[in-house]
């Protein structure tokens, strides 16, 4: 369906930027008593974006470029945009459930959600480092404000401040690294970088290029919660308003991985593969164990999900470790790693929102995020308990839920690299067991422990429908992943230039 003509490649970005402005205008002209219209307007925008992303874009179409190569729309970008559009829609739905606790600034809140979403759309298809930097900053900056948005709560401000200081440090890393990439290649486009590496004919790249690449990767590692840039994650997850946390968990991670993938597909070549595989294997190890071990003693649900999100970054890094030298399948191991990352991100988006929606509803009703207060939830609201259980099991990677298939694909891609990946496979397996342990601790509280306060928690019709839909989506993605796997794998193979 071609509704935008030559502007089709920037359709989503344009729509969401205009939508953000429209939401501000609606806010401006809406009397105080009818502020729920703002949320409705924002919902309409994201619903249109969702439909446009899933039904208005061709996944297998030709790669389109605009702005002289600054913007590239290929299969990978389309897949990521669909993930972002889904996350954006769910974030706005979650935010509407949360609005009662926003005493002011609904318009601004939704505007910032949409501007972050615009940034994510841009990030998924940037073609040069300038666009990368500013799009990334658009996402980050929107999240600085969103995290601190409930400024009457000290935790929220603290979350914003921590995000700000570490995020700015990461931005400085990215900028410094970009400078060295520019110094080494004389160009700021991904194509230029690729040409430069191709001209080396398999020789390892110069050390200044490596320095630049590493600083950019570490700066992006901040977005995805990768060791050693992961320290902010638990505090910010705990302190930020819950819909923001969910959007941050999904959007920031996916945006970071979009860029890491873009960068790695650009630089992966005979001269860099060894270093990259070693690097990502080590980082995946550290990140996996850090996130999952530190999650065990947690008592706050949002904080637990924060540590778990670090763990999930570790799993995703396993897909990057598959980009190294492959003994049996050369390019296809790399492509399957990238495909696994894409699929995992989509599954993670749905799962995370499934979990956070329950967290939002629960804290709206009880004002608490403590795990102990979840005791006996199954008796107070079977639907909430069941939805959260399904989401947690999907995070843990239990079949037939979406998370299982994602982990299976990641592990498969690591296995395809041959015996070199064996240690990482074992580490992944061990971490799945650890992860299961702490998720089950929460499940146990909900189903076994007696409730302190037995009053039922009612769930209204639309919310229940949303919970059912998310649970169904997790099952569908786990049981019939075929279509999505095909999309992800076509996208990844196109990005690596593997035929078929």
């Amino acid at each position, binding site marked *: 369906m071609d509704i935008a003509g030559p502007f089709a490649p920037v359709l989503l970005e344009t729509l969401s*930027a205009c939508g953000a402005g429209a939401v*501000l205008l609606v806010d401006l002209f809406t009397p*105080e008593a009818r502020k729920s219209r703002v949320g409705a307007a924002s919902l309409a925008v994201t619903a249109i974006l969702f439909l446009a992303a899933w039904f208005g874009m061709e996944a297998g179409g030709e790669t389109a470029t*605009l*702005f*002289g190569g*600054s*913007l590239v729309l290929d299969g990978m970008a389309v897949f990521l945009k669909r993930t972002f559009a889904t996350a954006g829609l769910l974030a706005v739905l979650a935010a509407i459930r949360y609005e009662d606790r926003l*005493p*002011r*600034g609904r318009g*601004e*809140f939704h*505007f*910032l959600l949409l*501007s972050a979403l*615009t*940034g994510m759309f*841009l990030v998924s298809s*940037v073609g*040069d480092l*300038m*666009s990368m*930097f*500013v*799009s990334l*900053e*658009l996402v980050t*900056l*929107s999240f*600085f*404000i969103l995290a*601190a*948005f409930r*400024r*009457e709560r000290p935790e929220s401000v603290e979350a914003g401040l921590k995000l700000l200081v570490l995020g700015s440090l990461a931005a400085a890393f990215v900028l410094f690294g970009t400078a*060295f990439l520019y*110094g080494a290649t004389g160009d700021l486009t991904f194509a230029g970088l690729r040409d430069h590496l191709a001209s080396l004919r398999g020789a390892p790249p*110069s*050390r*200044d290029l490596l*320095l630049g690449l590493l600083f950019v990767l570490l700066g992006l590692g901040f977005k995805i919660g990768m060791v050693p840039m992961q320290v902010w994650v638990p505090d910010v997850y705990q302190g930020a308003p819950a819909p923001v946390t969910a959007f941050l968990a999904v959007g920031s991670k996916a945006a970071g991985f979009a860029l890491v993938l873009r960068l790695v597909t650009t630089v992966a070549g005979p001269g860099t593969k060894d270093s990259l595989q070693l690097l990502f294997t080590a980082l995946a190890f550290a990140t996996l164990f850090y996130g999952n071990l530190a999650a065990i003693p947690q008592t706050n649900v949002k904080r637990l999900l924060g540590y778990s999100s670090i763990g999930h970054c570790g799993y995703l890094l396993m897909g990057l470790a598959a980009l190294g030298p492959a003994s049996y399948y050369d390019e296809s191991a790399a492509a399957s790693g990238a495909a696994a990352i894409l699929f995992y991100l989509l599954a993670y988006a749905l799962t995370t929102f499934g979990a956070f929606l329950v967290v939002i509803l629960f804290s709206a009703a009880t004002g608490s995020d403590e795990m102990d207060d979840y005791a006996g939830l199954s008796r107070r609201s079977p639907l909430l308990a069941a939805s959260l259980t399904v989401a947690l099991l999907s995070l843990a990677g239990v079949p037939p839920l979406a998370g299982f298939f994602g982990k299976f694909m990641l592990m498969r891609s690591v296995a395809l690299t041959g015996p070199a990946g064996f240690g990482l496979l074992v580490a992944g397996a061990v971490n799945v067991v650890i992860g299961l342990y702490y998720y089950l601790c929460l499940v146990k509280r909900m189903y076994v422990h007696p409730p302190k306060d037995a009053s039922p928690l009612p769930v209204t019709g639309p919310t229940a429908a949303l919970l059912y839909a998310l649970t169904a989506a997790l099952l569908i993605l786990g049981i019939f992943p075929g279509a999505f796997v095909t999309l992800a794998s076509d996208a990844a193979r196109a990005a690596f230039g593997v035929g078929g």
Partner: protein
Amino acid sequence: MEGLGFYGFGALTLLGALLMVTSRNPLHGVLWLVVSFLGLSGLFGGLGAHFLAAIQILVYAGAILVLFLFVIMLLNLRPDDVERMPTFSLRGGVGGFLVGVVGFCAVVGSVVMGTGAFAKPVAGLPPLEAGAADVAIPLFSTALLPFEVVSLLLLAAIVGSVALTKRRLP
């Protein structure tokens, strides 16, 4: 002449930066940072980036740092309000300094000094003079997308700042 410019402005920049980092009074810190940015502007000029040299003074020194001053005065911060002592626990301080700062300098320094392509004297490079018009051409052609994104970014920053700071809580 090239040499004089670099050493002079470089020393100014570094000195300003060091004094900013060590100043107890944030007000003094801002002023030292202005000095440092003036030096940086001189360095930009020496490298032929005349437009950026002007921007550095107009935007950084003229706008951003004034905003800092404004906030410091708004909050009425005095030196002893905040900095009772810097956090310098022995372990974190020495470890952070050694691994972080010294390690950073060592890595970057060794890479810079080890790359032969950067050993060329600047004076020998082909001249590059970039005034406003020269920078504007790529800015509005090849770099149009980031330019548009920056406009959105600034809008988001404005909206966000207003949302975070406006006084009235209904």
